[in-house]
């Protein structure tokens, strides 16, 4: 049956899935990322651990939220707490691995 449906009819539905994914993930991702700006280092670390968990569990599909995540990662790279800083480097490595490109330039901006 699928062969009878021409590709142009399939493309919009796949695009709508991506949009729907983002619609649900975006508020969650943003809410967790905001916690990485907490005054308490342990809360920042925990929030970062959750973000890392998102990328480790969902992997490539979650990379659509990379542009939103990068400014927060760039901030956390210079965190005063060494545990947070170390975890941020771990996250940036994973992001580079999933996106397939170096994020050095993006993180310096």
């Amino acid at each position, binding site marked *: 049956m699928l062969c009878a449906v021409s590709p142009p009819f399939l493309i919009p539905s796949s695009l709508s899935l991506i949009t729907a*994914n983002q619609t649900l993930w975006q*508020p969650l991702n943003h809410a967790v990322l905001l916690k990485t700006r907490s005054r*308490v280092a342990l*809360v920042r670390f*925990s929030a970062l651990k*959750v973000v890392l*968990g998102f990328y480790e569990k969902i992997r490539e599909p979650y990379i659509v939220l990379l542009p939103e995540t990068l400014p927060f990662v760039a901030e956390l790279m210079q965190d005063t707490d060494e545990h947070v800083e170390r975890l941020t480097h771990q996250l940036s490595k994973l992001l580079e691995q999933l996106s397939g490109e170096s994020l050095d330039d993006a993180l310096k901006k």
Partner: protein
Amino acid sequence: MDHCVSYLQWADLSVSCKAARKAHSREAPAAKKRRTTTTTTAAAAADSESSSEDAWLDAVTATGGSVRDQIAVCDQVVRALHQVFVVDAQLHFMGKEKFDRLLPVLVGQLEWSYYVRPSAEQYKTFVHALLAPAIVEMAALMGNFVCTPSS
């Protein structure tokens, strides 16, 4: 679901009230600098809360509720939600409305539970064993949710 949200909010409100009380009842001791900093933040937020919440907390405490009970209930609620997220890929119980209701209270626990737990170690255990896996599982379920025909 309503009970889950209200239990998680309960923890939030009681923390705000307690933080406000601490801020009013004592001067900031240097030995408890970490707690004092966080108390100030929570107190600022709590100032905007109505006095009826404080009265409500008193009523809850008077009927036998305690911080320890709240922590235990909160742990159980988060554990139960984690299980719901794990099995929901087949059950389709969750929906956008439920996600929208749970998101703020569940993510809020990242910060609120820091103030309500007696020690940093207990907070770490709670986050790493219960809260973080639950939030991550919720995100994974959100990904499955939009791909299911029923949604």
